[in-house]
């Protein structure tokens, strides 16, 4: 489903974030991307979302070169992906409920369906009683759960989770991981970037390890070693 082909990303001031990386992700796969802080995990996900353009190399999504997607079709492409951003990126002027409903509203789903899905997701991430609060009225962990809810509510084909448990207590961490596993079981491709060792070890899924922008290990049922 996704193919990274000799990807290099050089930021201004010659910062090499990703260095000649190639790997494939199959449909319905669960891939963990691990690596130290600054290894290039977030950059990799940004390239996939076409937020950043690769300096060299190509990324294919369902066989199509994503750099060739024109600006008209870009929104549609991005709606196929549910991204949980490391810094949440909730819409500050919208309530939790509106944040979660937003993507479905963009997609033109019916009001009834949106209400049903949103309420259900709110329950799953245990934010029912915060639904009418604004993001700046939530704790860090609550914001993170709202971000997760927004990413998965419209049932995208692919979920990009960038450190989705960074701000969560062990109880909610387990919950979220269980949720991601369940979504994966239902047929969604999941890419999880994290440096949370225990999670990786317990998942027993494919692990791609990055170091200074290069892949140093890529193992099925991998373990967290950095």
């Amino acid at each position, binding site marked *: 489903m996704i193919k990274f082909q000799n990807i290099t990303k050089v930021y201004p001031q010659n910062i090499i974030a990703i260095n000649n990386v190639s790997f494939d992700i199959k449909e319905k796969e669960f891939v963990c991307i691990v690596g130290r802080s600054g290894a290039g995990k977030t950059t990799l996900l940004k390239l996939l*979302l076409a937020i950043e353009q690769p300096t060299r190399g190509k990324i294919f999504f369902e066989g199509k070169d994503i750099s060739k997607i024109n600006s008209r079709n870009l*929104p549609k492409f991005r709606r196929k992906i549910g991204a949980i951003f490391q810094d949440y990126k909730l819409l500050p002027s919208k309530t939790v409920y509106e944040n979660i409903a*937003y993507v479905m509203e963009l997609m033109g789903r019916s009001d009834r369906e949106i209400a049903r899905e949103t309420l259900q997701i709110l329950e799953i991430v245990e934010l029912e009683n915060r639904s009418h609060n604004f993001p700046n009225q939530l704790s860090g962990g609550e914001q993170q759960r709202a971000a997760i809810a927004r990413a998965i509510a419209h049932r995208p084909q692919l979920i990009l989770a960038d450190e989705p448990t960074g701000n969560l207590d062990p109880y909610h961490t387990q919950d979220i991981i269980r949720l991601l596993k369940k979504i994966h079981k239902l047929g969604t491709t999941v890419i999880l970037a994290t440096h949370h060792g225990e999670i990786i070890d317990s998942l027993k899924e494919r692990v791609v390890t990055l170091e200074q922008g290069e892949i140093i290990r890529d193992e099925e049922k991998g373990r967290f070693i950095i």
Partner: protein
Amino acid sequence: MFTSLKRIFHFGWINFSRNPGPNLAVIFVLVIVISLVTSLYLFQRPAKFLIEAIQKKVDVSVYFKENSSEEEIFKISQQISKIPEVKSTEYISKAEALEKFTERHKEDPVLMESLEELGINPFLASLSIKALDTSSYEGIISFLEKEEFKPLVEKIDYYQKKSVLQKLLFINYQVNKFGIIFSIFLAAIAILVGFSQIQLSLYNSKQEIGTMRLVGASNFFIRGPFIVQGIIIGIFAALITALIFGGALFLLNPKIESFVPGLNLLGFFTGHIFVILLIQIITGVSIGVLASSIAIRKYLKV
């Protein structure tokens, strides 16, 4: 498509209702502009009223020489009456002219005394001619200036009154011209203020717009709500202005009517309320939309 539009209106309404501060500032400026435009429209009414009133009063007075007889004057009068543009002619004899003068100035003993001392009637007999239309006076006058009337006619008195009328027409024209220029000027200010207010609120939502793009919002969905916000601001400004004008005219109308009898501005306002509302809403909405679309352009290039 319909649901998208509905959602964009909903988002626009939320944008509007959640930050009343900057929106009120834009509304305030717009109310001033719309008021001006409305005043220009309403001003037509008293201006027209005054011009008509003066036109009614305009006439040509032909004063006849001391030695001309009434028969001669009547002959001329009959000739004049045959001109199709002439509405009426009225003969004022020397005695009548004196009577009218004493009537007007009976409170003024000095003037009366000097008139008495004079011992004779210094006034001239005259014909007062009214035309159907002000523009025909020129023709009537050239008729009177003909050689055959020269021995009888002392003077033709028209120019004084004409200049009053011309002055009024000129003032009316000037008011309209400057009013329009001033309105355009104010509209430009309103667009600037609206633009900077919206830009300010956009600056705060710059990140938000970025995020909207990341989760897959199209330009239509990002721009739409801001434009709707402009529309809502415009409509509110128009309605507020209409209320202000309605209220002010309701309170002032008795005064205006006592000042200029027969001028019912409130009646004119209520009678033309739809046209006035339309003018106000078009002004408000177009400025609001213009300001917000200029402001958003910059931020769409994320």
